[in-house]
């Protein structure tokens, strides 16, 4: 049971280290989904938003860690 709980914790830990980073990335993906469905022809712009959104999320996370 303890091993199963630890496995579950490790499994979540694989993807979430800084909760803020994970939330922003999920937000960027959700906004990209909205953009992709509302303007299906603007593929490159929507893709660019996803790429730059992820870069911004990374920058925000490391700069926040740097301020601590």
């Amino acid at each position, binding site marked *: 049971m303890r091993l199963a709980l630890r496995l579950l914790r490790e499994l979540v830990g694989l993807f979430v*280290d800084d909760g803020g*980073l994970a939330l922003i990335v999920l937000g960027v993906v959700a906004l990209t989904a909205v953009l992709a469905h509302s303007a299906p022809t603007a593929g490159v712009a929507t893709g660019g938003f996803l790429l730059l959104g992820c870069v911004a999320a990374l920058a925000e996370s490391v700069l926040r860690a740097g301020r601590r």
Partner: protein
Amino acid sequence: MWSGHAAAFVTAFLASLVEAVEAFTIMLAAATIRGWRPALLGGVAGLAFLTFLCIALGPMLESVPLHLLQLAIGVLLLLFGLRWLRKAVLRGAGLLPLHDEVRIFASETAALRTLEKHRGGTDWLAGSVAFKAVVLEGLEVVFIVLAVGAGRGLLPPAASGAVAACLAVAAVGFFVHRPLSQVPENAIKFTVGVILSAFGIFWTGEGLGIAWPGSDAAIPVFALVLACAAGALMPALRNRSGRPGG
């Protein structure tokens, strides 16, 4: 096609190398306390458990619609890759200590010796420590292989890359018999973080119906953008904190 195979092999190899080195350090600590037999038995049991998980869960992936699979894998890759990249940037800027296999080996050995004094039954203890190390680090390897290979028919090269990394670590570890502290863990983590995040952006976009210009050829462009951005963040952080960095 072959570039896709090579990318899957190299990505899985590098990522698995990091995980295999970490698992080896803990197995070595267990072997130092009680010899290789219980450590190897624990390690083999861990591998058997992971194999069982793959056999049990693998076929379920085939029943998931392709777009949903691409989106799920893409998002998980993004979370996983950016997490590695963040850690590598913070370590590179000197804000987090570098991963030190020698220190981890010493602390694992000390913890095992303490448990040995209090509990006895050390063969079982060493075996279970090795089992947990292989299962916990192996889970990451399984995810990376599935994420890099599933949905594009690249599971064989990705799995081969992971197996090759594990065999390489086992072979080198067998000869040197000490923690593999010379592996440039942070540089590998940075590289793999960039590659996995680039794959994550590609798959997430595909899952959302975005038609990337040049299809797969967009992945190296994403990797370049991410590498430049992450590379620029390191000196910026170092200047802010006034630390020399690693």
